[in-house]
């Protein structure tokens, strides 16, 4: 028994460095980009981080738990507006700037999670298309409420949203502080979701996707499981919204229409429903492609081909690889398979 405790403690300690290394690498990239890239590129790359948070969190509900939600933009909006509004409060001025912007996503996430709970509890009795319609309706309600709230600018939107200021003593420009805050939150999101799904406890989410009746017969409280998935997903959608708000620095209710939800869904479908690494890769592709590649193409040809190429790409994907780039596999699974493929050959040669 003691042995087991001992082993568990050392395993628990071993799980700590991984995420920290991830954060350090991303911050190093921030310093590198600060020296090399132009502000526009920097902006697009920061957007990748926010979009990756949004995509991975939606994947928990749509990909892993098998519930089709179309309301992610709604939760994102709740988080974005919460964070943007709090950032300008004089009551919070006592907090050190960097720390304030690092912790604002928590408030944004909590409010979004509450919204997720309120929507999730009644609507998760519904399945498939019906759930999709209800979540879509919810997203629209949030947008209309924001549109009519003068406190957050109404239809004019919210201008001049502050971001974490530069910290010259650390050589941190405004870009580095925003990029590193987003990086830290992406790592937190990714690690949390990854660990949930890669634990027996979290496999309960997958069992609901696989077969609700069997899951219930095996003692899984499926309503609780679905609500949990919804709340966790909404929390990180709120976080993603906060990162979005401080990167773009301008919010408008029109940003959070149904098409924004669809954008995020496209990311998870392209990356693979049930693959977090796939979601991150797809978020990067979908963010960069229209901004950088297609814009160049438009300048070259003089015709706006963005939508044409965008749709064509999706159609081709649905025909050639309907499960997305990675399907339900993670990038690590693919690496392991590759290693296994080359290993037996090497082992046989040595014999």
């Amino acid at each position, binding site marked *: 028994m003691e042995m087991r405790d001992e082993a568990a403690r050392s395993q628990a300690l071993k799980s700590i460095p991984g995420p920290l290394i991830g954060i350090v690498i991303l911050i190093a990239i921030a310093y590198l980009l600060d020296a090399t890239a132009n502000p526009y590129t920097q902006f697009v790359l920061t957007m990748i981080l926010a979009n990756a948070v949004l995509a991975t969190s939606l994947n928990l509900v749509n990909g892993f738990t098998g519930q089709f939600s179309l309301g992610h933009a709604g939760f994102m909006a709740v988080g974005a507006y919460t964070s943007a509004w709090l950032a300008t409060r004089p009551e919070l001025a006592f907090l050190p700037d960097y720390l304030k912007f690092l912790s604002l996503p928590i408030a944004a996430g909590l409010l979004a999670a509450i919204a997720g709970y309120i929507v999730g509890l009644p609507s998760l009795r519904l399945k498939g298309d019906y759930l999709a319609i209800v979540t879509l309706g919810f997203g629209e309600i949030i947008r209309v409420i924001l549109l009519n709230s003068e406190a957050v600018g109404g239809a004019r939107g919210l201008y001049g949203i502050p971001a974490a200021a530069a910290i010259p003593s650390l050589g941190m420009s405004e870009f580095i502080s925003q990029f590193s805050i987003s990086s830290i939150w992406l790592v937190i999101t990714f690690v949390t979701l990854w660990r949930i799904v890669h634990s027996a406890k979290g496999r309960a989410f997958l069992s609901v996707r696989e077969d609700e009746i*069997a899951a219930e017969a095996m003692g899984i409280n499926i309503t609780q499981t679905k609500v949990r998935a919804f709340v966790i997903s909404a929390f990180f959608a709120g976080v993603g919204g906060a990162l979005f708000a401080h990167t773009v620095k301008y919010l408008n209710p029109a940003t959070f229409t149904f098409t924004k939800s669809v954008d995020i869904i496209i990311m998870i479908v392209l990356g693979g429903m049930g693959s977090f690494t796939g979601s991150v890769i797809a978020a990067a592709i979908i963010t960069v492609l229209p901004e950088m590649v297609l814009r160049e193409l438009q300048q070259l040809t003089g015709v706006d081909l963005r939508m044409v190429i965008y749709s064509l790409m999706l159609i081709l994907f649905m025909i050639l690889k309907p499960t997305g780039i990675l399907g339900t596999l993670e990038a690590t699974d693919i690496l392991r398979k590759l290693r296994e493929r080359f290993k037996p050959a090497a082992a046989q040669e040595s014999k």
Partner: protein
Amino acid sequence: MSEILLKATNMTMQFGGLRAVDGFNLTLKSGELVGLIGPNGAGKTTCFNCLTSVYKPTEGQVEIRGIDTKSMKPWQISKLGMTRTFQNIRLFKDLSVLDNVAIAGLQHTRHSLFDSVLRSPRHYIEESRLRERAFELLSIFNLQGKADHEAGSLPYGEQRRLEIVRALATEPRLILLDEPAAGMNNKETEDLMNTIAKIRKDFRLTVLLIEHDMKLVMGICERILVLDHGVLIAEGSPAEIKSNPKVITAYLGSEETV
């Protein structure tokens, strides 16, 4: 020893104009092995669904260990110590064999989702215990070598066995088997009979099973209930059932009198 585990009183299930199960009565004592038979469409699986709260019976009541299950969900039934397998296999197909069993054992773990996110020591203790337990059960059924396989990729017979393993992982006192021998050949059915006898002894299980294979039912059941058109038409030992004219009529039809 002879505690009453499961009791159904006047259980009735009405779908619109169809009475799928009509006034079903059953008392199952601890340690019994009872068979439920009947022609196709007699309402056997509907009975199981009512007993496990998948359907809410329109009349009558079901008690598990003296507790009325009227307002309970199927997952709460599982916590009371009653579990089931399914006629049309319902495994978590895309998950590994090990995961299938581990998920069923979750209700006996003490760590929270929060432990798993933080990867706390308790997470590692509970998860490794869960894995060990799952491997133990899998090795009883000779499936330990397939732990990493996708459940859906197993051959049919192994999928049926895995369903039983998964049900056992919930640590039940009472297990309902819905046609465990469906689609099996003679040899496989015989193995299954031995397995049922074995798990019954090793896990001190009470078993209620639906089966069409008469050799299996007559071979292992101590008591048999016969259902026809939702109505219980006979109850007794295998020998009594074999010679019961009502049962013969239900299965073969009556001699025509011109």
